[in-house]
């Protein structure tokens, strides 16, 4: 008969080997983050994703779970990211009439703005003495996660650093779109949505759907086009 503490330890070990624990923790942190966000009066500067991510990291640390093991388990959730990206095609189709009306400004803005989103960050970091690995992790900061992972690997960056950069970029892009569209008196939700998706990927797009379905569709478009464009251009530019 083994002692209770020993059995507790081996229980934790067995549980953390199954994806159920990782999924349960992630879902729990997701709901707790949303709940806390609503309780705090929905502050724009602290979106639920940050709250949830901090809670989740703290829980993993407190339970002293192995981070790599958590990742393996959570892979089950990450697999859904692919179909979720496909799902963005549906609002895109539903809002096609709005998008058609603006195709010219969209096609002119996109290449320049998406390139600059990467260039500004890389130049600033390079000026402050960042290593090539860090630069390669920052370059795809405005690109949606499933594409950005591929880009960063190809450029030789760190995926965890890139994901952290993605999170911060999404959050501050949401804040800046709000702030600057107020200052520039831009009330057109199509422009705000497009800027949210182009600069703030999935986090900006989630915010755009809160504004309106039209803003959400423009954000999906901005996110999709930025992802495709950056994936094609960045590896070419970076190797020069």
């Amino acid at each position, binding site marked *: 008969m083994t002692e209770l503490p020993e059995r507790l330890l081996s229980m934790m070990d067995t549980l953390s080997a199954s994806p159920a624990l*990782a999924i349960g923790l*992630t*879902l729990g942190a*997701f709901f707790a983050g949303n709940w806390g966000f609503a309780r705090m009066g929905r502050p724009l500067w602290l979106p639920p994703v940050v709250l*949830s*991510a901090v809670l*989740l*990291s703290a829980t993993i640390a407190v339970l002293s779970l192995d*981070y790599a093991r*958590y*990742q393996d388990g*959570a892979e089950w959730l*990450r697999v*859904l*990211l*692919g*179909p*979720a*990206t*496909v*799902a963005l*095609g*549906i609002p*895109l*189709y*539903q809002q096609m009439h709005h998008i058609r009306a603006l195709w010219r400004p969209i096609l*002119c803005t996109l290449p*320049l*703005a998406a390139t600059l*989103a990467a260039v*500004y960050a890389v130049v*600033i*970091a390079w000026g*402050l003495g960042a290593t090539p690995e*860090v630069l390669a992790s920052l370059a795809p*900061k*405005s690109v949606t996660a*499933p*594409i950005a992972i591929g*880009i960063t690997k190809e450029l030789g960056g760190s*995926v*965890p*650093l890139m*994901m952290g*950069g*993605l999170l*911060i970029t999404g959050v*501050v*892009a949401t804040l*800046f779109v709000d702030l600057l569209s107020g200052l*520039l008196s831009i009330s*057109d939700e199509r*422009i705000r949505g497009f*800027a949210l998706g*182009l600069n703030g990927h999935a*986090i900006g*797009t*989630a915010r755009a759907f809160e504004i309106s379905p039209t803003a959400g569709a423009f954000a999906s478009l901005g996110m*999709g086009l930025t992802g495709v464009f950056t*994936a094609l251009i960045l590896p070419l530019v970076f190797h020069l």
Partner: protein
Amino acid sequence: MPMLRGFLILVLFFLLGEAVRLVFLLPVSGGVLGMMAMTLTLMVTGGVSEELASASQGLISVLVLLIMPGVVGVFFTADQFQGQWLAVGAALLVGTFLSVLTTLLLMKFLIRAGTRSQAND
């Protein structure tokens, strides 16, 4: 059940996107290729079924949940990038500020130019 049927369609389009990516060695994710294929298909067939709409709404509303596992990684690799945080922080904050400003100004300017030229036609 209807939602699952919609989910099956999304998964099939994702697999299609992945297949195209692998066969043509494209640097774009299967999800985005699938999204493009989905939009084109809907434009041809001309309608979204209820099952597809409910499955996509469900997934879009939990988009943030799906990136969380990746996001928490940064807290566990933080010490690897000591001395780089000022550069990282400045690049993310200032860089994003500038790129948002660029996007908004460009769109505002181009849309206004577009409506003006239309008025002149």
